[in-house]
């Protein structure tokens, strides 16, 4: 499968999937959380409101029940305290207490006196009647208001004892005639309970709170279980996690909560402090609904109410359910809906993929054809299926390829022609470049030749002017002296002066001749011809015969000498010059000897003239060929001879050099020279 169609298909499937998923998620969220900015709260909001309503109702019911229950207890105690029996019995029993205190009877005796007295019995019977009627009391007792001595009780064992909760006396006295409720804890048993107390008055008090005629106190103790019962079982059955608890002003719990604390223990009433938000709010006298945490640290929805007991004193009532429990059905529904949505989305994506594949197939064909065309197959054609948009596209595409093919052929033709033309041009260009390079090289060669010629000319001019000036100075100088010497009549000097002048003039003449000669070499040449070297040597030997015999030089000439090719007169000059030089620089050699010969060096034939004369220091080997260079002042000559020899050899394309080990070792003048072609001797 080619990548573009796969892409199209997956793109379609993906977008379908994403679209479906987004829609379903949006619908689920709206259903759960409601439409924003409308009254629709969604199932979550609705559930919250419903539970809150139920909790509020339950809290109100509980509050009401508790209030009624408390009122009932209060009326019980005030009815008993205000009954005639209670008032008269109390008076008489107080009498006994006072009498016994005066007579110094023991506590046991006091108890017995109080038990046996008619009033005691009457009061106890009244108490017992209330106790039995309601079955909610743990005990009922009456006490002396002054000393707190129990004068009557449903628990006969404590008669004559002190009241355990002494502050109840004060409360009762302060609120003379009014019943008061207090949650307390027994210091003996550690049991928590609610105590409702009311003062027994001598007669009706002039106003509430006047404790002047308080003679005793009736206290009714409510059992803990009895105290809890009214609210626990008033439950609305909202949820399993539903719980009700009461706290006092100090947030101490009054009832045992339904669930254990986070550490696993049970909260102990009047010890454990309900330090959570709804309890605090309730204890502060506020009422309402809140999302908060309870004593277990679990998030809950709680309704809280304040139960006023006395002015500035009240309890907090909290009814709560766990948020988890009330909202879990909603979450469950949401998850189910999501799962179903996911399945739907997958199914939709698959269907979308299949449909996309169907739509993409012709496009894929087209794209494959396009790829083939791109790779160079201009004969590829797309399959035309149906006459829909894709079919039309395929048709258009095919006709386009047709046209492209035509263009391509045309272009190829043109390119072929152009290439041919270009190749021709290129060859021409290469030729031209080669031509230019050649002429450039030629030009450079000519320039460098010209430069070296120029330099040579410069050198030549310089040397010539110098060497021509020298005799001029001599001539003018000695002419000056000649005049003076002639005037002074010094004849010896006169002849010396004129000899000097003559010598200088002669030298100048010779110089000019030789310079002329030198300048002719290479410029004026006889036509080249084959010249046997042996013949030239013979002629030179004859020319220099006088000097040779004068010095007693022995000539050793090789038998086989090559036939040279060049200007015969010039070659003779070379041979004469070299031979003359060799003879001339013999020094003090006793057996002067000159050897003329040939040797092979590589593929060159080297002609040499060897002497055993003074020799030449290797330092001056090049210098001797220079113009006007002389190694010794004593010898005659202008210093042009060897320069002429070198020039002749070089003009003919040969080389000339000196081989000598130095002064006293003789010297060898060697040169190469073009030789007669057919007659090259080995």
């Amino acid at each position, binding site marked *: 499968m080619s990548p573009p169609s796969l892409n199209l298909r997956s793109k379609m499937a993906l977008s379908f999937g994403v679209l479906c998923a987004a829609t379903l998620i949006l619908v689920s969220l709206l259903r759960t959380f409601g439409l924003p900015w409308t009254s629709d709260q969604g199932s979550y909001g609705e559930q919250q409101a419903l539970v809150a309503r139920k909790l509020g109702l339950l809290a109100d019911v509980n509050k009401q029940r508790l209030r009624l229950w408390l009122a009932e207890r209060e009326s019980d105690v005030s009815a008993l305290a205000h009954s005639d029996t209670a008032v008269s019995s109390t008076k008489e029993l107080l009498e006994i207490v006072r009498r016994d205190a005066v007579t110094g009877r023991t506590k046991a005796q006091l108890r017995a006196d109080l038990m046996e007295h008619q009033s005691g019995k009457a009061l106890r019977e009244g108490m017992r009647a209330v106790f039995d009627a309601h079955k909610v009391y743990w005990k009922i007792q009456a006490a002396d208001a002054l000393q707190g001595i129990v004068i009557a009780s449903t628990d006969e064992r404590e008669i004559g004892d002190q009241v355990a909760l002494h502050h109840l006396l004060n409360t009762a006295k302060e609120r003379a005639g009014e019943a008061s409720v207090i949650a307390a804890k027994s210091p003996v048993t550690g049991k928590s309970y609610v105590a409702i107390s009311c003062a027994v008055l001598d007669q009706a008090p002039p106003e509430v709170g006047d404790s002047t005629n308080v003679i005793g106190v009736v206290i009714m103790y409510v059992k803990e279980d009895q105290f809890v019962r009214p609210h626990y079982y008033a439950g609305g059955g909202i949820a399993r996690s539903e719980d009700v608890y009461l706290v006092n002003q100090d947030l101490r719990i009054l009832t045992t909560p339904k669930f254990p604390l986070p550490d696993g223990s049970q909260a102990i009433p009047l010890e454990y402090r309900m330090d959570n938000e709804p309890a605090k709010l309730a204890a502060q006298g506020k009422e309402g609904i809140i999302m908060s945490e309870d004593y277990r640290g679990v998030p809950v929805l709680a309704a809280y109410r304040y139960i006023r007991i006395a002015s500035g004193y009240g309890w907090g009532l909290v009814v709560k359910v766990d948020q988890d429990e009330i909202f879990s059905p909603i979450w469950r529904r949401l998850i189910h809906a999501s799962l179903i949505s996911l399945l739907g989305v997958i199914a939709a994506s698959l269907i979308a993929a299949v449909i996309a594949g169907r739509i993409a197939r012709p496009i894929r064909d087209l794209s494959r054809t396009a790829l083939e065309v791109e790779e160079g197959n201009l004969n590829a054609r797309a399959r035309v299926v149906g006459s829909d948009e894709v079919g039309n596209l395929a048709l258009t595409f095919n006709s386009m390829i047709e046209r492209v093919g035509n263009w391509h052929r045309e272009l190829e033709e043109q390119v072929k022609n152009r290439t041919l033309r270009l190749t021709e041009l290129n060859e021409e260009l290469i030729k031209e470049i080669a031509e230019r390079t050649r002429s450039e090289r030629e030009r450079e060669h000519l320039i460098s030749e010209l430069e070296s010629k120029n330099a040579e000319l410069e050198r030549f001019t*310089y040397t010539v002017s*110098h060497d021509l*000036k*020298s*005799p*001029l*100075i*001599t001539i*003018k*100088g*000695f*002419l*000056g*002296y000649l005049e003076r010497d002639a005037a002074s009549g010094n004849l010896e000097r006169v002849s010396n002066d004129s000899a*000097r002048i003559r*010598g*200088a003039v002669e030298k100048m003449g010779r110089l000019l001749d030789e310079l002329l000669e030198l300048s002719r070499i290479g410029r004026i040449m006889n036509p080249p011809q084959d010249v046997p070297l042996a013949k030239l040597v013979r002629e030179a030997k004859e020319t220099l015969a006088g000097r040779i015999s004068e010095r007693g030089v022995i000539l050793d000439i090789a038998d086989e000498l090559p036939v040279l090719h060049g200007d015969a007169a010039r070659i003779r000059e070379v041979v004469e010059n070299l031979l003359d030089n060799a003879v001339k620089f013999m020094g003090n050699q006793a057996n002067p000897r000159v050897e003329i010969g040939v040797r092979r060096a590589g593929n060159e034939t080297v002609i040499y003239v060897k002497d055993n004369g003074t020799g030449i*220091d290797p330092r*001056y080997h090049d210098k001797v060929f220079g113009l*006007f*260079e*002389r*190694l*010794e*002042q004593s010898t005659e000559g202008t210093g042009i001879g060897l320069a002429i020899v070198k020039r002749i050899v070089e003009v003919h394309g040969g080389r000339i050099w000196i081989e000598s080990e130095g002064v006293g070792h003789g010297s060898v003048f060697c040169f190469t020279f073009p030789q007669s072609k057919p007659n090259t001797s080995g």
Partner: protein
Amino acid sequence: MNGEPLVILLVEDNPDHAELIVRSFEEHRVANKIIHVSDGEAALDYLFHRGEYADDQSVARPHVILLDLRLPKIDGLEVLKEIKAAPELRRIPVVALTTSESERDMMGAYNRHVNSYLVKPVDFEKFGKLMDDLGFYWLAWNRKPPCDASAGSPQECPEEA
């Protein structure tokens, strides 16, 4: 002037010129002693006491050297270079006395620290005048380095830093 002998080393290959110079000096009583050598090698041999002059006790260090530039064997510029390279000789004034007016020779000579460059005048009178002035300038007017004051005694002069 004191009576010490004034020594001139004349390096001149042309015997005619040498005679002209010597005669000029004699006429003007310029120097007591003129030593003439005719090539570069001889000049260096003389100055460095070697070769021909190795055992010659009469060899005196010259007060001034007159040097022709075109010389057989060792060229004048080469001689100049060696003189100026030798610590014991470099203080001797060297006067190039030549027929050459070529720029190359002048630059070569000055680059090798020649003390003066003179071109031999063709005119006889001028030639004589030059020789006179030359002798007078170098041997009378010119102050010699103190430690070389006494010619012929190769006293060591401290090298400057």
